[in-house]
């Protein structure tokens, strides 16, 4: 472990030239082998998810392609359709490998989609609250309190009851549930930052408010935002799994990783481990790789950690 991190950063062979911020960012990011590895793993996962319809042996969401007679087959069994179920099948005769590939799509869409939108909404509101202060601040923060005091599960149940089950609806529910975390975090940091000298200096220079917020305040609020976003993506994916566990998430005919785990969970005690074990592993790898990347991103992006 220590050897990998101690490995010297690639030294530019040629004479130093002026680096663009992006290049600097990339070279800094590449300093950590673990993060780089995680990024590669994550990109592979994204590729699998994107190309699932072409590479999966079966469309697990098409009832016509499933055969209940192939249900709960052990990994490596050849099924009625003539191909091998390398990771076994679930109770409906759904090929777990295909199920995981398709499930990755849903988990990623749900996790990333909800986190990105929630981050944008939450961070904007949090920033606005901190910068504008006064009544705006009060209203936004009371809204945050209102949201945070609403148990996730109940918000989700109500929203999904209004809208019905479905991937989009789960994403909407997660956004509604999560934006407040970002708003609160960003406001907290921004409150501290805006009293710092550099902001006062910028204000003295009569820079436009928008410029102060986006060029000065926002970058300095990024590190905690990234920490929260990292946690929230992981959390969104896990939350979706939990909603499915409680019977509220995605439709039962289009299982996400979470729903696959939840389905297999009932078989855990009976030794049919593969139904929930492999989706669990896939979920774990996904979340861990996202987190490793996010973790390192935070170190790289943090202006105060710069040498």
């Amino acid at each position, binding site marked *: 472990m220590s050897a990998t991190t101690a490995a010297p950063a690639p030294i530019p062979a040629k004479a130093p030239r002026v680096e663009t911020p992006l290049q600097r960012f990339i070279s800094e990011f590449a300093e950590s082998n673990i993060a780089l590895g995680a990024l590669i793993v994550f990109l592979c996962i994204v590729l699998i998810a994107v190309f699932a319809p072409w590479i999966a042996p079966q469309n697990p969401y098409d009832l016509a392609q499933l055969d209940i007679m192939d249900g709960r087959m052990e990994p490596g069994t050849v099924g009625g359709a003539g191909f091998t179920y390398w990771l076994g099948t679930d109770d409906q005769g759904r090929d777990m490998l295909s199920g995981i590939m398709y499930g990755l799509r849903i988990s990623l869409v749900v996790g990333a989609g909800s986190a990105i939108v929630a981050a944008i909404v939450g961070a904007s509101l949090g920033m606005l609250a901190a910068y504008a202060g006064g009544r705006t601040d009060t209203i936004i923060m009371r809204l945050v*309190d209102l949201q945070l005091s609403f148990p996730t599960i109940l918000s989700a149940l109500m929203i999904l009851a209004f809208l019905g089950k479905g991937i989009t609806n789960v994403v909407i529910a997660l956004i509604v549930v999560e934006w407040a975390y970002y708003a609160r975090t960003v406001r907290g940091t921004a409150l501290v930052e805006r009293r710092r000298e550099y902001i006062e200096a910028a204000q003295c220079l009569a820079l436009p408010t928008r410029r102060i917020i986006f060029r000065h305040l926002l970058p300095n609020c990024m590190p905690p935002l990234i920490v929260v976003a990292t*946690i929230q993506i992981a959390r969104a994916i*896990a939350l979706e799994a939990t909603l499915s566990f409680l019977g509220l998430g995605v439709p039962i005919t289009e299982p996400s990783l979470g729903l696959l785990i939840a389905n297999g969970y009932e078989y855990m005690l009976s030794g049919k481990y593969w139904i929930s074990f492999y989706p669990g592993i896939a979920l774990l790898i996904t*979340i861990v790789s996202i987190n490793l990347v996010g973790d390192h991103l935070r170190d790289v992006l943090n202006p105060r950690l710069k040498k």
Partner: protein
Amino acid sequence: MSVYLLRRLIQAALVMLAMSVIVFIGVYAIGDPVEILISPDADQMERARAIAALGLDKPLWQQYLSFLGNALRGDLGRSFVFNEPALKLIGQRAPATLELAFAAMFLAILVGLPLGLYAGLRPDGVGAKAIMAGSILGFSLPTFWVGLMLIMVFAVQLGWLPSTGRGETVEILGLRWSFLTMDGLAHMAMPALNLALFKISLVIRLTRAGVRETMLMDFVKFARAKGLSPRRVIGVHVFKNILIPVVTVTGLELGSTIAFSVVTESVFAWPGMGKLIIDSINVLDRPVIVAYLMSIVLMFIIINLVVDLLYSVLDPRVRLESK
């Protein structure tokens, strides 16, 4: 200060009012509790009687106004299912959830803070890497899955701990607590760990991030340059600074731990409020849902207030605005 407090309380009342309206409409939109509660033997006449008995025959706004009137007198209605005052039901279940949540938060800080401190001080060490990897696992694993794994390993395979339920209780102040008996603690160990896992990871990460940032700050460099012992630098100067985010998040998370212990409680058959609320949602027991949410909102508002007050004590740069 008192003006500030008063304003916060008025805001709190408004939030609770808004909440009750939303819940009323929300539950109304989900479904009809009578459809769920009614027995298969019931005919239409019996159905009409049940609807009237539960006060569901009146228009929604009328139901809401009568609820509001009673609420102002401290009566949040009776459970459709249990025919007991909703607040009493919640009060009966609250100790179980509270002790579980506090145990989880206690575990989180007990384990998370030292680990995070260590990882932050030696960020490149093997130990730190292992801790961080562990923390990533901690919030990657879905709670229900970890819960079942714990039961499988510690109760079924090894037989060390009881699988589910709450242990022996002792009555203090009219409420039943289980953390004072050995049996109670044994029952609490797994659910508390299950609930704490995510919080431990969170505390580790926050502490580590805080330590790493603080260590690079000028005042720390200055303190070191002055020749203060590392123990004093870390114990006083660094520690005080990293406490801010840790306190905020721990405070906020306490509320969410209590509110969201639903899954842990249902996996471990822990008879707390979380289980009550999920059961109540399943049968659309509106009085309990409303009363539960009001209590949770109140609790959150208090926690937020305390966190904000602590904030201003810990970090003088943040001022409570009282105009």
